[in-house]
Structures are given as structure tokens and as C-alpha cells.
């Protein structure tokens, strides 16, 4: 019954099923220690599998590889079909990299009364399975279903394990995404109807559907485009549909926050590339100025808002809004360089904001607050934490030599020939990025030790700081576990900054293929 295209399909099947099964097992474990280690072990196995997948993926092979399919609703040609292209593959790998890191990062997370790590980690693994599914499916209907279902574990992660205002944030997150999803469903049905009227046989198979719908008349394409766009613009998010993100990021526990901005939001941009552009190329070209305008507004607006935040987690959310502006600019500028830039930006954004949010989490775990004003002069107390925070900041502001530079520069460089005006406006975001990162660092880490979270750490103005005072007052520097959580991210930040070529090679062909649907030769 299963049809598979290659001998490596089992890798993809395993990648989907192992975290799903792991989630169940972890949920059932009573012993918290066992639950933690099981979850961590499963995420490591998943990572190993993803690395194998990377190895077996042929950069210059077929667009969709490792595919397999099982019929679900034959009447509508709906199949449980999965398969990956270069873009989906790097996203899946990134999920597999982040999962063990966030699990390790929340090892000692203080959970509210009645909440257990087994529940927490079980939801994280479920998230992992569902998000891998979203990126890897090749059936438009299955994509919709997973797009909606993956909201559930995130809803519970925020609503059960989050901060004080978690219920409000969780509901807001859910309503926004769910509403967008319904509009997308409308678009998908529209595409199906068009396919049926055009060929007599409707389908939800991505490959077949794109080849039919991409030739639809413009007015049909526009409606389908708008349906999908609503979902993706909310998910990405683009201004002005972004206000759910700051609340969700602030209230979510750090691990969930990382999965939210690092993985879940990427589905939006991924959707532009996988669905909007190939399904409705004419509409994408016609409406590109609209998206580009929103993108550039997002860059500038998000950056300015980030600078004005008083809470570090909300800060991360607005930084993400700005970064998603860059990504959308790269996608809708329709050049090979900007497209590859956008896809690698998705990966790099996960690494850099993921690292930033994790470091902020480590800080907030010590000071019991994410308010910027509660801190000051910390570099003297916790130099390593300050260093990690600073490096996370550097990759966030896309300093050359870090991973993010490659993608941001590719986006701008690539977008310039086709969209010079939008590019120049977006380039102003580079200055603003330096402003919001360095100003935040200055307020939290430099000057004399001060702030409500640090009461008792300073001997008063001008008093010399003893090196061990932080440790004695429960405000120690990074511990061994924390260093191991951050080390792989640091390696990725520097490694991909100086040697991004393997990543660029993997995503290049898929981007070229996507661009060919809007008549752009990938060069």
C-alpha cells in the first residue's frame, strides 16, 4: 500500500514516527528523571537520523526525494504523502538540531505546581513530529491538517507551562493561527475546485495541483493566493498581523518560545515558497509589491519596536518580526541569491534567535525576571553569560563572520537588482539592528551593578566587585549543562558564518525550481 520513491524513504518515515512514539512514551513515564533522559535520547536519535537524511539527500537530484505515500481519501485524491526538497530538508534538520538543545536547556526549568517534565517534554516531542510533518508533506490537504494540529501542543505548552498571562497569550496565538488556517483551507479548496473544473479530476497532490493551478487565470489565482497568504502572513508574521507573537513569546516557556519563533513561524515563509509561488505564480508576481511593502515595513517597524521594548522576550519577538521582513523581501524579490538568502535566513534565524532566547532564559532563571530594567552591570558578575548574550546579539545583528550575515547579505544583495528601492529601505534595518542589540546589551550588562533582580550583588557605588560574589548569592555564571547547551549553537554561528557552502548547495536547486515557476532563471 505504501508507495515509496527511494530506498531512503524509511529515513523520513522514521523521522516522523520516532518523535511521535517518543512523545507517547515520555507522557506515560512516571519517573521524571527517566522521562527527561528518554526525551533527550529520542531527540538525539532524531538528530542522528536527520544527519543521515542530510547525507543521503542529493543536491542535484530530483526536487522531491525520499517520498512515500499512503492513500487517505481516494475520492478527493488525498494521500498521506511525504517527501522532502532541499528547503524542507534543511528545515527538518534544523528542527532536529534545536530539539535536543531546548530539551537540554529546560532540564531544570521550574515548572508550576502540578506540572511535570514528562508532560512538558512529551509536548515538545509532539511539536517536533508535527512540525517535521508540516515541512515534509507533499499533500496540500495533509499540510492544512498538520498546520492546524500543530497549534495544539503549542497551545498547551504556552497555556499550561507559561508565565502569568499565559492563558490570554495562548488563546490569542491560537485564534490568530486558526483563523489564518481556515482561510488557507478556503484557498486549498478553491485550488481543488479549479483543478477539477479544468481537468475533470480534482487533486490535493502538491505536484499535480501546482502544475494545473499555476495556469489558472489571474483572478482565480489572486483569490487562491490571498487565502494561503492570510495564513502565512499571520504565521510569519508580517505587520500588522504580528501582535500575537510578542505576547506568545513572552508568556511561553523558553523551550516553547524557541520552537515558536524558531520553527513554527518558519512555516509561514516556507508556505510562500512551497505553496504561494508555485501554485499561483501570476498572482505572486502581481501582488509582490504588496508583500514587499509589508516586508520592508516589518523590517523597520519591528526594529524600532524591538528597540523600544522593556521586556527581553518581547524584544525577541519584535526582532523576529524584523527578520521575517528580510526573509519575505528575499522571497518576493524573485532572484536566486535573495531566495537562497531567505531560506538560509530561516535556518540562521532559528539558530541566532534561538540562542538569544535561550540565553535570555538563563538570565531570567537567575534573576526571576525578563524585564530589562531589573538588570544592570551584569558583565562583572557573570562574564560568560554576558559573552554568550553578546555573541547571540552579534549574530542577531548579522555581523559578518556569523551565520546570519551570509543570509542577510544574500537577501539584500540578491534583492537589489530587481527591487532597489525596497532593498535600500530594508538596509536601514542593519543600522537599527545594531541599535537594538547593543543598547540592550549596554543596559543589561554594562555600568555599575544595579537593578531589582540584582539587589545585594553590589557593595554600593564604586565598590570593587569580588569575582565570586555572584555564585555566593545564587547568581552564578554559566554552569556545565548550560555551556553544553550553548556550545553547539556557538559552533553553528561561527561555522556557518565562515563555511556556509554546504547549506547553500542543498537549498539552491529547490529555490531555482521555485523561481522557475515565476519565469525567473535561477542564476
Amino acid at each position, binding site marked *: 500500500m505504501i508507495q515509496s520513491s527511494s530506498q531512503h524513504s524509511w529515513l523520513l518515515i522514521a523521522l516522523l514516527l520516532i518523535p511521535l512514539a517518543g512523545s507517547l512514551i515520555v507522557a506515560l513515564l512516571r519517573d521524571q528523571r527517566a522521562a527527561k533522559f528518554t526525551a533527550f535520547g529520542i531527540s538525539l536519535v532524531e538528530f542522528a537520523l536527520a544527519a543521515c537524511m542530510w547525507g543521503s539527500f542529493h543536491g542535484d537530484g530530483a526536487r522531491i526525494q525520499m517520498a512515500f505515500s499512503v492513500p487517505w481519501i481516494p*475520492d*478527493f485524491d488525498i494521500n498521506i504523502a511525504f517527501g522532502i526538497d532541499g528547503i524542507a530538508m534543511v528545515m527538518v534538520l534544523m528542527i532536529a538540531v534545536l530539539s535536543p538543545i531546548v530539551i537540554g536547556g529546560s532540564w531544570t526549568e521550574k515548572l508550576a505546581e502540578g506540572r511535570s517534565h514528562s508532560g512538558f517534554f512529551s509536548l515538545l516531542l509532539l511539536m517536533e513530529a508535527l512540525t517535521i510533518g508540516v515541512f515534509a508533506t507533499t499533500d496540500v490537504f495533509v499540510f492544512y491538517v498538520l498546520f492546524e494540529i500543530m497549534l*495544539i501542543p503549542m*497551545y498547551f505548552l504556552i*497555556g499550561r507551562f507559561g508565565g502569568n498571562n499565559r*492563558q*490570554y497569550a*495562548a*488563546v490569542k496565538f*491560537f*485564534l490568530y493561527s*486558526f483563523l489564518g488556517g481556515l482561510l488557507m*483551507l478556503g484557498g486549498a*479548496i478553491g485550488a481543488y*475546485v479549479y483543478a*477539477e473544473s479544468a481537468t475533470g479530476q*480534482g487533486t490535493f497532490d502538491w505536484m499535480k495541483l501546482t502544475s494545473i493551478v499555476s495556469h489558472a487565470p489571474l483572478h482565480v489565482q489572486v483569490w487562491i493566493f490571498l487565502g494561503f497568504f492570510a495564513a502565512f502572513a499571520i504565521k510569519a508574521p508580517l*505587520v*500588522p498581523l504580528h*501582535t500575537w507573537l510578542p505576547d506568545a513569546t513572552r508568556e511561553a516557556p523558553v523551550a516553547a518560545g524557541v520552537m515558536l519563533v524558531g520553527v513554527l513561524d518558519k512555516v509561514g515563509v516556507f508556505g510562500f515558497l512551497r505553496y504561494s509561488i508555485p501554485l499561483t505564480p501570476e498572482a505572486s508576481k502581481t501582488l509582490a509589491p504588496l508583500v514587499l511593502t509589508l516586508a520592508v515595513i516589518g523590517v523597520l517597524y519591528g526594529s*524600532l*519596536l524591538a528597540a*523600544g*521594548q522593556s521586556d527581553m522576550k518581547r524584544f525577541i519577538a519584535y526582532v523576529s518580526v524584523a527578520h521575517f521582513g528580510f526573509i519575505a523581501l528575499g522571497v518576493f524579490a524573485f532572484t536566486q*541569491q535573495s531566495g*537562497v538568502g531567505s531560506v538560509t535566513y530561516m535556518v540562521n534565524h532559528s539558530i541566532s534567535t534561538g540562542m538569544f532566547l535561550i540565553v535570555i532564559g538563563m538570565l531570567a532563571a537567575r534573576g526571576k525576571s525578563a524585564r530589562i530594567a531589573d538588570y544592570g552591570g551584569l558583565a*562583572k558578575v557573570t562574564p560568560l553569560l554576558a559573552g554568550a548574550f553578546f555573541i547571540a546579539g*552579534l549574530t542577531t545583528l548579522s*555581523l*559578518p*563572520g556569523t551565520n546570519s550575515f*551570509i543570509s542577510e*547579505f*544574500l537577501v539584500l544583495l*540578491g534583492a*537589489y*537588482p530587481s527591487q*532597489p528601492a525596497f*532593498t*535600500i529601505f530594508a*538596509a*536601514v534595518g*542593519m*543600522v537599527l539592528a*545594531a*541599535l537594538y542589540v*547593543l543598547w540592550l546589551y*549596554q543596559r543589561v*550588562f*554594562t*555600568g555599575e551593578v544595579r537593578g531589582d533582580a540584582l539587589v545585594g550583588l553590589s557593595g554600593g557605588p564604586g565598590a570593587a*566587585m569580588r*569575582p565570586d560574589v555572584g555564585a555566593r548569592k545564587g547568581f552564578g555564571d554559566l554552569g556545565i549543562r548550560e555551556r553544553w547547551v550553548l556550545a553547539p549553537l556557538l559552533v553553528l554561528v561561527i561555522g556557518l558564518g*565562515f563555511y*556556509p*557552502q554546504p547549506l*547553500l548547495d542543498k537549498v539552491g536547486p529547490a529555490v*531555482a525550481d521555485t523561481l522557475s515557476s515565476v519565469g525567473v532563471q*535561477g*542564476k
Partner: protein
Amino acid sequence: MSIAASETVQQASGTMSLAWLLFALPAFGALVLLLGGRRTNSWGHILGVLTVVAAFAVGLVLFFTSLGAPPDQRTLNLHLFDWIDVGSLQVEFGMRLDPLSMVFVLLITGVGALIHIYSIGYMDDDRDRRRFFGYLNLFVFSMLILVLGNSFITLYLGWEGVGLASYLLIGWYSDRRSAATASKKAFLMNRVGDVGLAIAIFLLWANLGSTQYTEVFARAGQLSPGTATAIALLLLLGACGKSGQFPLQAWLPDAMEGPTPVSALIHAATMVTAGVYLVARSNPIFDLTETGRLVVTLIGAFTLLLGCIVGCAYDDIKKVLAYSTVSQIGYMMLGVGLGPFGYALGIIHLLAHGFFKAGLFLGAGSIMHAMNDEVDMRKFGGLWRKLPITFVTFGLGYLALIGFPFLSGYYTKDAIIEAAFGAGGWRGWVFGLAGAIGAALTAFYMTRLMLMTFFGKSRWKELRSADDREFHPHEAKPVMWVPMVLLAIGSLGAGAFFVLGDRVVNYLSPTLGRLSTAESHPIPELLITIGTLVLAAIGVLVAWLIFGRAKDIPAQRPENVSGIVRAARKDLYGNALNEALIARPGIWLDRFLVWLDNKGVDGLVNGTAALFGGSSGRLRRLQTGFVRSYALSMLAGGVILIGALLMVRYA
């Protein structure tokens, strides 16, 4: 005009392929020192020095090897690996070994090594000395990438890399608020320039389809005049940011918050001259646009005067030297702005300036070391007896800077002033006179500095430093004064060595083209030389009349002064302008947007929710039993879907 356009670039082989060590050595040092942590505390500074000294040795070997090759074969390319390769965009991580990059390698590693050695002594009592050396190594690494990279994108990597090192080192004393603010300001103002540089790169890519030097320079002729001018001006914006030129000069004096060896290495000898390097490196582009070159010279001439004027007003010894740097880089910009008439002259002044200004800063560091880190010259006086070595080495740097006959500045600055007069028409007069007046003002403020610091009454005897200690000036340890002596020798002889026989001009010609000389000057060359000397002498004399003859210099600076002095003390209102035009409106805009986002955008959403749900409180209460409503809506969605499908199928 330039022969650089028709250059031949060969692959580096043999000894020259060892050039990768220039990247690897300081990178290794930085990695070990920054990641090694406290374990490396005891020997970290030694490693930091050794990597740079070794890099200098490699630089010398490469330099002499390249001298062995005929001039037209001195431009080599060393491919290290493919860095960014997307479609037709191919960015190598590679090195361009040519005369221009070679002289920079020697300057950076040579002066860098001396300053590293000096820092062993200067930072001796700092708990984090090892980290300091890590940052210095990081700087040297980035700076070498900047000058050795073989494309505009590798240049950009080094460009922002040195900005990072500069940020870290300006903010070294991180518990000082002023240091934190200054470092952020430096990075931000640099980023403004960097955006200019980035857009210039985008333009090159859009018009020429490459960012590699070889291809860009070979095809620069294809650029339309307007595009060439736009690229030149954007490159200049980048140069202004990095080199502290108007209108982005305000960060450089604030950068003096960093430890003094940093000021010497980064904010005097090397990094801040990167803008001059950029213009010289891009000479095939600047050759195409007279407007572009004119703007470079205008910026240079204006900034050199601005730096001089402000330099006259400060009492902080490091700030005077900082404005002197601003002003001297103005001279260099003026030089390279003259195009084929001045590329080489700008670079030569840059090299000579690297020696004497680094020497001056190290001298200032030695004075601060002796004087409880005091920088207010009004508290100095009569120090030559207490600090004889510092006095002599500093004095040589001073004479070199003001253009005392046969010392460095005499040869290198004079050449620029002469070439400026040769620019023809009103330009010759404007630029030439700006340079000449600058020479007089330079002599004035530097003499003032010398007199206030080393001569006159020993005012420090009756004063205390800011932390309420008495002053006990003493000469520094040899590890500090030996580098000062070596740099003083450079101040003494470098100019003559570079200029006489046109050594450097000829050496640089494969990269910068042959140096053109003006056919006629509005006034004879000899007269320009003598006139400049006379003007400088007048500057010295006036300074002596005001500050040398007077019995005493008040320890508090007089407040009742003329408008021009008040303006100069306020940096000619550069900061006030930034504040009024950018900082304040920016803050207001930001506050407004934060308010708008909370009340407007989000308010709209909550308001809409309230409209549907009755009250916004209901949105909050929706969570009770939400799973049920979720399931319900899923179900509803499913029903709609299946209904739609059935309709489509059986309609």
C-alpha cells in the same frame, strides 16, 4: 590613466602561498585566548604577542619574496576556499597579495606587534589582561582580512570585524557608563557608513555581476558615469564612518574611552585609516568619476580643518591626539581624492602617520601610567624631568607630526599639500590653502600640548587625581618604553625612507598606477614648502606666546572665552547636531510606535474580538474548556470542507 585596470593577476605559489598564516596566526591567538578562559591567564599575553610577531615575520618574508618578482608580477591571488557561491554569485575566501596590501600587512603587524608588547606593561594590573590580548588578536585578524581580502565582501567582513574589535576595546572599562556609551556610538556611526559600503557592493553586483576585485576592476569601465559616481560616493560614506571623517567624525574622539594602546593601534595607526585604504583600493572606480574624487577631497579638506580647530580647544591629551588623527586622516583623504595625483601620497602619509601617531599615543599612555590615569593636561606640566624617555620619544613624534624639516611629516604631509595646490583652478587654491592652514593649526595645538604637558610649572605637585591620590610620576618599564623608542625611530626616518627616491611610490605603482604630477602649480613648489614651514613656525610661535611664556596655566579651564573656542570645545556642534536631528526624533518616533503597537494595532485586534465576543474580557475567559471549542471548530471546519468537496464533486 591608471595601469591597474590592465593588471595581470597570478595565482600565488611557493613561499607566497604561506600567506594564509597571516589569517591563521592571529585567529588562533584570538580563539585560544577567548575560549580558553582563565586557564590561559598566566601565559595568555605571551601567546597574544607571539602570534602577531610571527605574523609580522611572515609579512616580512612575503614582502621580500614579492620584491624579488618583477613589478608587473607582484599582484597575486591566493584562493583559500569558496565562501559564498550561489548561482552566478561567486565569492571566494581568498587573499589578494599586491603592493598595497603588503604595505598594510607590514604596518598592521609591525606596529601591532610593538603595541602588543607595550600592552604587556600597560595592562599589567588588569585582571582581564588575557581577554584584552584576545580582543587585540581578533582585531589584527579582522584588519588583515580587511586589507588582504580579494573581494568587496571579504573587505566587508574585515570592515565590520574591526568594528567589533573596536567596540569591544572602546568599552573595555565596561563599568564606566561613558565607555559603554562611546563604544555603542562608535559601532552605530560605523554601521551607518557600513550601509553605504553595502549598497555600493549591491550596485557593483547589479551592474557588473561580481564583487571580486579582479573582475570589478577589469570591467569597471562598463559602469555608466552616474553609477560610477554613486558607487564612489557610497564607498566614501563607508570610508567616512570608519575613518572618522565629516559627517561621521563624532565617534572617534569618544573612542578614547578605550585603553590607550587601543587608541594607538586601532584609533590612530590602523583601523581608522581603513577608509583611505578603501578609496585607494577602489582606484579604478574613483578614476572614472571626477565628481566622486572632488567630494573626497572636499570631505578631506573640510575634516582636516575641523579636526585642527577642535584639537586646539581640548585639555584632554587623548582627545587632542584623537582630533589630530581626524585631521591627519583628512590630509590622507585629500591626498587620495586627488586621484592619480595623490593615491600613493595618501598611502605614504598613512604609513608615516601610523608610526608617529602610534608613538604619540603610546607616549600619552606612558604619561597616564605615570599620572594615575589622568588625562587633563592642565594638571600636568614640567614632566620632561620626570619622564625623560617619554619626553624624547614623544617629542620626536611631535616634530614629525608638525612637519619639522627632514622628519616624517615634513616629507609626507608636504607632498600632499603640494599636490593639492596642483589640482588646478579654484581647487588648487582651496585645497592647497586648507592643507597649509591645517599645518599652522597642527603646529599650534601640538605645541600647546607639548608645553602644557612637559614644560612650565609642575602643576601636579599641588593637585590630586580624580580618585584623590597624589601624583608620583615615574618612567615606565622597558617593556613599555622600548616600543616607544622604536616608533620614535620610525617618526624620525620613515618619511625620508619612504619618499626619497620615490621608493614607496614606485613600489605601489602596480596597484595604484603611476603617480602623476601636476604640470604647473599656481605658486612654485619651493615656495609651497617654505610657506608651509613658515606657517607651521607661526603656529609654534603663537602657541609659545600663549602657553609657554605665561607663568602659569590655570588648573581649571577658563569659561569666559570667545565664541569660536566655545564652539570648538563642543566639537563644532557635531554631537549637538546628531542629537537634534537623529537621536531625539528617533526616540520620540520609537515611543510613539510602541504606544501605537499596544494601543492601536493590538487594541484593534482586542477590540474586534470584543465586538464578536461581547467584551475583551471574554477573550481572556475563553480559555476555560477551550479544547472543547477547539474541537468544535475543527469539526465545523471539517464539515465545511467535506461539504464543499461533496458539492464540487456532485454539483
